[in-house]
């Protein structure tokens, strides 16, 4: 479904990603784990269209998307849920969700999608009229996820969904991410919280200093000595 092949990405003259390749199949949950500054967000921004690779290719549903403008990438069915959620602070919860349905193909069906999102996150329905700035950290993340789903995506990109959340809310949100697959969605998430992301992901890639250093089934990576030492503190 998503295929990244051999991309290099630069910030000015500084190279941030070196020949990165990875693949995400239909209805799979794939995690990219790594330390702060490893280049995970850079990769996500490149797939999502905010950055352009200097070389290499990104294919989505058989079409080249590297170098396309952001609106075209969103229109093609990719939802990007940024780190910290970043809801629009001075808009109500409902307006934030409506903004998620901005692509034309989603806008016409937004009432129906809104019902589904409220079904997944009843808390958002309760807070429908509240301004997003008044929500708690967990609610903001829920709102961002709901807003992403409003665009009727095929693929969801999550940037650090666990960022700054209390453990109990984190578990709830990860359960939701896992359940997205049952609705035919594919998930690619980047995380520093290695244990929790490996528990919900089918496969994972490990990124260090802008390169993919290992990959495999999540279960196998959880047993890997290097991963245990470097990321799980065992």
């Amino acid at each position, binding site marked *: 479904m998503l295929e990244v092949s051999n991309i290099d990405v630069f910030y000015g003259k500084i190279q941030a990603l070196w020949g990165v390749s990875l693949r995400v199949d239909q209805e799979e949950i794939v995690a990219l784990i790594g330390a702060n500054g490893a280049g995970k967000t850079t990769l996500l921004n490149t797939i999502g269209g*905010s950055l352009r690779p200097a070389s290499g290719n990104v294919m989505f549903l058989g079409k080249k998307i590297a170098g396309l403008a952001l609106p075209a990438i969103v229109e093609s069915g990719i939802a990007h849920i940024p780190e910290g959620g970043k809801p629009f602070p001075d808009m109500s919860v409902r307006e934030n969700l409506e903004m998620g349905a*901005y692509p034309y193909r989603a806008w016409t069906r937004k009432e129906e999608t809104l019902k589904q999102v409220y079904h997944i996150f009843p808390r958002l329905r309760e807070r429908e009229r509240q301004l997003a700035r008044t929500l708690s950290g967990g609610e903001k993340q829920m709102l961002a996820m709901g807003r992403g789903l409003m665009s009727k995506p095929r693929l969801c990109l999550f940037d650090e969904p666990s960022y700054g959340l209390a453990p109990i809310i984190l578990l709830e949100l990860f359960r939701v991410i896992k359940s997205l697959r049952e609705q035919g969605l594919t998930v690619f998430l980047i995380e520093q919280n290695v244990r929790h992301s490996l528990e919900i992901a089918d496969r994972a890639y490990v990124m260090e200093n802008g390169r993919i250093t290992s990959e495999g089934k999540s279960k196998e990576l959880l047993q890997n000595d290097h991963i245990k030492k470097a990321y799980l503190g065992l």
Partner: protein
Amino acid sequence: MIVEILDIVIAGLLLGGLYALIAMGLSLQYGVARVLNISHGEFIMLGALGAWFLFGFGVNPLVSLAICGPVTFIIGFLLYRTVFTRLRTSSASIGAYEGSSMLASFGLLFIIQSIALIAWGSGIKGYTYLAFPVNVGGALFAANRLVALAFAVFLGLVFYFFLVRTRLGKAIRAAAQDPATAGLMGVNINQVLALCFGLGAMMAGFAGLLISICYPVNTTMGLEYTIITIIVVVLGGLGSIPGSFIGGFILGLIGSIVTYLEPGLSLAAYYVLFMLLLLVRPTGILGK
């Protein structure tokens, strides 16, 4: 006494309605497109002179609204796409962009004004439209002023509902709050910013046209209105559209009271208010 108060209040509302419309336009240009547009008054002048010019061909000023509005919108939109989009992408930071875009708008002021001077000269221009008096609770007003107030309030409200209710209006507000995240929603940011600049120019054009119905106009009228607009926008709270609407009416009322007491002092009173505001509450009425 009551008639005098009514006289002052209604005159203040008339002035305030025009200020509100102009300030909402600048608020959009500064609050979303991040251009503190010093040439805002020139679009007011274009609307005013455009209406006067068309009146010479027998076009009813209210019909001219439907011509001057779209024309000022297109000029604003194209200026943003050709000048400001380029400045934005080449600026290192949003602060640098605000500085360079303001300087560019200074240049636009002189360019637009000079072209208008060549085309129309510097003389004072006016025309007579709906000049008969109307009695409002004992105070007499020219009908054209009441029509101008009604249209200013109507256009202000239409614009407000456009921002609150429509898909595009929501995209504009989202882009004002967080342009990067609005981009992730699929909003074409360059397009939306140009749209905001164009809509701001259109509000100025509408206001200029309504001004020309009530007062004599000329090609160098713009700068004074730009200064008044900046005062209203700061009074209402930078970037707050409802703040600009309310601020416009407040300044209009103050202007009307001062004009009643001492006709020459209204602009001076605006400056005093502006300085006090910067000292006491620089964020304005609805600012954060």
